[in-house]
C-alpha cells in the first residue's frame, strides 16, 4: 500500500471505492503479536504469543475476560483493545444485571461492530487499530468471532490474527473440520500448536504463550504455566523421539524461507501434529 491523495482522513473515499484510513487501521492489526482462537461445539480456546518490549519488561496482557462466558484476545494497538474490552465488560454486566442472564456473545459482537463502524464515518475520529477475537457462549453453543477495525465481524471455527498469523492459519486450515467434535484437551493442544507455528522455529516454552479456555459448564479462565508446559511436553517429547536431532519439529508452511522449505516439507510428515 502506498501513500496517495485519498488517505488523509477516514471520511474520504478513493475513486475505486476504498477508505484507505480503515485499511491502514487493519494493517495495524497485522503488526501486533499473534492471537489465535478455535472452538468446538462446547468450548472456545483463545491463545496468544507473549511479546515483551524488551528483556527488562513484562509482556502485555492481550487476552481479557469479559464475563464468565465470554473472553477476548486482541492484536494491534493494545491500548485500543483495552478500551474496547472495558466496553464489552460494561455491556455484559449491564445485561446481566437487568436480565440476570448472560449476554449472548452474538449480540455483543454486533454492538462492538457498530461501535467500530461509527469511527469509520466521523471525520473527527479514527478507526480502532485493534482486531478482536471474541469467544463466547450463547443458547446455541460456543462461538468464535473476529471483529475488525472496519466494523465488520465474521464467525469462525478457528482463526489467527497478528504477525505471522498466516503460519497458524495454514495449520488451522488443515485441521479445522475436526474441531467441532474435539475434546477440550485436543482443542487446547491444537491452540498451542498453532501458536508454535507463529514462532517460526523459536523453542516453544510456556512462558512465551498465554492460553485461556471457556466452555459449557466451564467459566472463562487462564491456564497456568504448568498446565501449558505439560501440553507442550507431550508433543515436544514425541518430536525428540521421532526425529532424534533438533528437539522441535519445524514443519513450516508457505511462510518458511526457501532453503528450509524442502527440509520443512520432509519434517512435516513426521511432525507430531499428525498424531
Amino acid at each position, binding site marked *: 500500500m502506498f501513500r496517495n491523495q485519498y488517505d488523509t482522513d477516514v471520511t474520504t473515499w478513493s475513486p475505486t471505492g476504498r477508505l484507505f484510513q480503515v485499511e491502514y487501521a487493519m494493517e495495524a492489526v497485522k503488526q501486533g503479536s499473534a492471537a489465535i482462537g478455535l472452538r468446538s461445539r462446547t468450548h472456545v480456546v483463545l491463545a496468544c504469543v507473549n511479546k515483551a518490549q524488551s528483556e527488562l519488561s513484562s509482556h502485555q496482557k492481550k487476552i481479557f475476560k469479559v464475563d464468565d462466558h465470554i473472553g477476548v484476545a486482541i492484536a494491534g494497538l493494545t491500548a485500543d483493545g483495552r478500551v474496547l474490552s472495558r466496553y464489552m465488560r460494561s455491556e455484559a454486566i449491564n445485561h446481566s444485571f*437487568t436480565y*440476570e442472564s448472560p449476554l449472548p456473545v*452474538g449480540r455483543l459482537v454486533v454492538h462492538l461492530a457498530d461501535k467500530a463502524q461509527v469511527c469509520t464515518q466521523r471525520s473527527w475520529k479514527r478507526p480502532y487499530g485493534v482486531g478482536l477475537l471474541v469467544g463466547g457462549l450463547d443458547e446455541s453453543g460456543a462461538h468464535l468471532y473476529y471483529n475488525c477495525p472496519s466494523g465488520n465481524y465474521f464467525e469462525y471455527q478457528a482463526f489467527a490474527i497478528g504477525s505471522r498469523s498466516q503460519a497458524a492459519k495454514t495449520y488451522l486450515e488443515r485441521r479445522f473440520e475436526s474441531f467441532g467434535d474435539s475434546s477440550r484437551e485436543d482443542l487446547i493442544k491444537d491452540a498451542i500448536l498453532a501458536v508454535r507455528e507463529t514462532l517460526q522455529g523459536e523453542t516453544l516454552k510456556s512462558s512465551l504463550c498465554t492460553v485461556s479456555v471457556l466452555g459449557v459448564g466451564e467459566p472463562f479462565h487462564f491456564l497456568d504455566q504448568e498446565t501449558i508446559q505439560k501440553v507442550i511436553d507431550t508433543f515436544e517429547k514425541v518430536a525428540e523421539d521421532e526425529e532424534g536431532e533438533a528437539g522441535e519439529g519445524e514443519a513450516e508452511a508457505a511462510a518458511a524461507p526457501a532453503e528450509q522449505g524442502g527440509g520443512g516439507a520432509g519434517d512435516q510428515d513426521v511432525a507430531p501434529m499428525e498424531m
Partner: protein
Amino acid sequence: MTFTIPIDNGDSLKNAEADSQRTLYPYVTGTSIVAIKYKDGVLMASDMGGSYGSTLRYKNIERMKAIGKHSLLGASGEISDFQEILRYLDELVLNDNMWDDGNSLGPKEVHNYLTRVMYNRRNKFNPLWNTLVLGGVKNGESYLGMVSMIGVSFEDNHVATGFGNHLARPILRDEWHADLSFEDGVKLLEKCMRVLLYRDRSAINKLQIAKITEEGVTVSQPYSLKTFWEFKAFHNPTAGAEGSW
C-alpha cells in the same frame, strides 16, 4: 374530535408541575391472581373484573397476557399501569425478535427486567401500581415469580397477589405438591378462586385459567364457578338477634 397531546413535564425532582403527573392512588383495579407450577409448566387464574373503587365497573378485563414465546404475565392493581407494562414488554419482545439470532428472552429474563422497571419507578416515587405474576417454561424448566409495586421480587412454586395472599396461599401451602396433573392443578386453582369469590368483595364470578407449557400459552374462555349459598345460617340470619338485619 379534540386531541390532547400528552405533556411531559420531566422529573418531579426538578419540576413542581411534574408532581401532578405522578401516580398517587389507583383508579381501576384488578383483584387477585393465583398461580402454581404443575407437571408441564405453570397454571394461572384470574377473574375478569375491573373495580372502580367499590363499584364493579368492568367485567371483561383480561388480566393475563402472553409475553413472547415463553412467558405469561398476570397483573393485579391498576389496569392502566398493566397496559403500560404490556407496552414496555411489547417493545422488549420486538427488539429481541429483531435480532433473529436463535436467542430469545425466557421467563427469568422478563421477570428480572420487570423487577428493574418496578424498582426504578418506586425510587422515583412514581410507582406502577401493580403486583405482577410472571410464569413460563423454557428448555423444559418451569419458572414462576412475582414482582410487587415497590420492586420486591421472588420466585416460588405457587404465588398469589392481593387477597390471594391471605386466602389462597394457605390452601396452596397445604395442598400443592410437585408434578400436579393438569386436572388436579385446575381443581386446586378453582378451590382457591372459589374462596376468593366468597370472601373478596372485588371478585366476580367470571374467571379465566391460563396455562403455559413448552408448546406455548393458552388462555381459557371465561367461565363461572358453582357456588353454594344454602347454608342454614343464611336462611334466617337474624335468628340470634331479633330486630337486627
